[in-house]
Structures are given as C-alpha cells and as structure tokens.
C-alpha cells in the first residue's frame, strides 16, 4: 500500500470512485496498488505492456470464439439416437419452447456480450498500439466498461459440467471439440479482464489524442 498525502494542486488530485474521498495522486511502481485510505478501494495501478497483452489476448479470443460456437459442446446418445448441442442451440430450443425472454438472455450473456467485448478490446488495443485514428475509441471503451460482468461464459461452462453430471446416469455423453475451445476462450477472456486497466488506458487515450492533434 502506498501512503497518500491529502493536499495538493488540482492537477495532481483525484477522487476515490467508491467513497468520493479527495486524494493527491502519488507515483507508483508496477505491481504496486494505490489504495483509498478510507474505504480501501483500489484507486489505480500499473500494468506493464497492458495494450500489447490485450491485443494478443483479443486476437486469440476472436479466433477461439469460432470453434467454441460452431463445434458441438456435448453429444448425447440414447438407443441409437444422438443429439448434439452448440451454445446457440440452448437459446434456440428455449425460444421454440416458448421461453423467449430466457432464450434472449442466454443469447446475450453467452454469445453476444462476449463477442462484442472481444471486438471492442481488439479495436481499443490495436488502435492504441498502431496509433490509428480511432474515431470510436470512447464508444468502444465505454461499451467494454459497461458490459463488464454481463459476459457469463464461465457460468455457462459450470452449467455444462452440471448438465454432464445430471445426465451421465441416463445416457452416454460425448464431450465435443466445442467444450475444449470454450474452456480456452474462458481462460483468454479472464486474463484479458485482469490486464484491462481502465485508469491506464484512459490515460493512454489522452496521450493518443494529444499526439493526433499535434500531427494535424
């Protein structure tokens, strides 16, 4: 923890986003968290090579997203009949069964939100890394930040495991390539949310914009 002084000029001030305490910014080393003295929220920290890591992870995630969604997660065999399932079908079957709202939520939380977050992350990291123009940087950042917590692939994976245990006595189950891809995709998404450092990226966006204006 870094000790924080209380007085300073407005340029060096910040406030705690959880309790609104006014705080003088202090320098910090990578790996060192600056913590609010009143509510102990993490105010800011430094992630080394954050942009490059996010770029690599978002590309990996976008690639893994394809097999995770087109190959079957599970296949079930009973009396010679077989039924396999991809993520999208969980939503489709519920929709056909009349539970449209639940189907929509599964579609959003397990397919749309994770894909959209990966695209936003790829856009943010590639724009900042290659110093592209980035007209949509603000929108991409705000969407990613507001969608945090709404992508629920890891919960979906736990649901798959529970379904396997529930069905294993009734029928023969085959684990498909989709499940392995889903596992890898979840690792990539979790790592990217660890390396996503909003305070630092907004600062980089400030610098990015200043450079752009200086070039014009």
């Amino acid at each position: 923890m870094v000790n924080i002084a209380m007085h300073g000029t407005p340029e060096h001030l910040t406030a705690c986003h959880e309790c609104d305490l006014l705080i003088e910014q202090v320098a910090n080393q990578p790996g060192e968290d600056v913590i609010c003295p009143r509510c102990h929220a993490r105010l800011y920290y430094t992630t080394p090579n954050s942009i490059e890591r996010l770029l690599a992870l978002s590309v990996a995630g976008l690639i893994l997203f394809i097999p995770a969604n087109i190959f079957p997660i599970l296949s079930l065999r009973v009396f010679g009949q077989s039924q396999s399932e991809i993520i999208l079908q969980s939503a489709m079957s519920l929709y056909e069964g009349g539970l449209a709202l639940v189907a929509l939520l599964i579609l959003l939380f397990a397919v749309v939100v994770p894909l959209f977050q990966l695209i936003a992350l790829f856009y943010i990291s590639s724009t900042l890394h290659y110093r592209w123009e980035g007209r949509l940087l603000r929108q991409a950042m705000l969407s990613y930040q507001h969608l945090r917590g709404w992508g629920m692939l890891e919960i979906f994976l736990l649901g798959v495991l529970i379904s396997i245990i529930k069905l294993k006595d009734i029928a023969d189950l085959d684990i498909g390539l989709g499940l392995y891809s889903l596992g890898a995709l979840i690792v990539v998404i979790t790592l990217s949310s660890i390396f996503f450092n909003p305070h630092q990226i907004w600062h980089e966006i400030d610098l990015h914009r200043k450079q752009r204006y200086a070039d014009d």
Partner: protein
Amino acid sequence: MTDHPSPRRTARNSGYLLCIDCEKLHRISQEGQHCDRCGARLHSRIPNSMNLSWASLLAGILLFLPANLLPIMTFKSFGQGEPSTILGGILHLLEQDMLMIGLVVLIASIVVPVLKIIALTILLCTVQFRLQTNLRQKTMMFRVVEWIGRWSMLDIFVIGILVALVQLGNIAHIEGNSGATAFAIVVLLTMFSAIAFDTRLIWDNGMPEADLPPENTDQKDER
C-alpha cells in the same frame, strides 16, 4: 486511519466531481455536462440512485416468489414425468446422492439470491436512514454482492443446455417452464439494483452538505 465519520475532504465538498466512467476529476460546476475525455454525462452522484435501486430490488423480491413456486422445467420419459421447481430439482439431486452438485445449485440458485437481496436491503437502509456504522465493511459487502450476483444465472444456463440436449421425442424430453423466466428476471433486477446503487452515498452520511469554508480545507488532517 480511523473509521469515525469526521468531516473529511471529499471531491464533492471541495468543489470537484469524478467522472464515473473514466475517473477524470472535473469542477463541480460541470454537473450535467459531458466529460471532455470519455463523453459520458458528469454527475457528482448517480442521479436517482436510491429510487432506481429500491425499485429494482423490491420488484426482484416480489418476483422471487413465483421464481421459487412455479416449475422451472419438466423432464418427460416415455410420457411420464412431472414439472419440478428449483427446490424440487435440488432435493432430487440430493436424493440421488449427488451432494456436491446439489450444494452448488443450492448456493447459486437460493443462497446467493437471498443473501444478495438481504445485503442490498441493508445497504439501501444504511443510506436511507443515515446509519453511520461499519461503513468500510458495508462497502466491502457491496463489492462481494456485485461480483457474486451473476452466478445465480447458473440454473438458467443448465435449463438451456438440458432442453437443447434432451430432445429425443418420446424416449426422453425436457422442456422449460415459466418459473425460469421469473427467476431470470429476479437475477436481472438484482443486478440492475446493484448497478444503480452509488457506493459514495454510504460515505455521504455525516458529511457536511455545504462546501467547507476555504480556511477549513487548509487545516492539518490528523491521520
């Protein structure tokens, strides 16, 4: 570092406000304008935070009843089978000696939503009735609630997977029922309630409403 609510310098009573989206500090006179860095609308506190949070929470509590009383899915094999509720499904798992998995579903579907509703009620009452005890613990409680609430969607995903997988006509067949919709809305509403809640309101209790006089702000802060 004491916990007692002595008047401290907050951004608000020092004439600043923090952009909630990009954490840039602005003058409080910019309330309602757009942040020059991220474009979000600036507010010292989330507008209508208490109303939105209470409304979502109360609606969630009301829907918690049908979510638990109505059946969430029906398993039919050779024409036989009855609809089961959330609790019925858990008891069925426990009967079959699947203790671990039963516990996981019990925690995700019943324990977490109930604890989340209780925790949000405590937090909202803290702000509503200006309670001033254990503020740091309450902030911590909010962080846990915010993180853990989404895991309640587990049962919904299980239903989706089972319905998609077990479609073997007469032999075996699973369908979803309306309790699942009610339960999904409960999870959704408690998540909205947590998002609408502004943790800074907890710490506003006991804070002077008006700006501190300038000579006061230069006093030495004993910490």
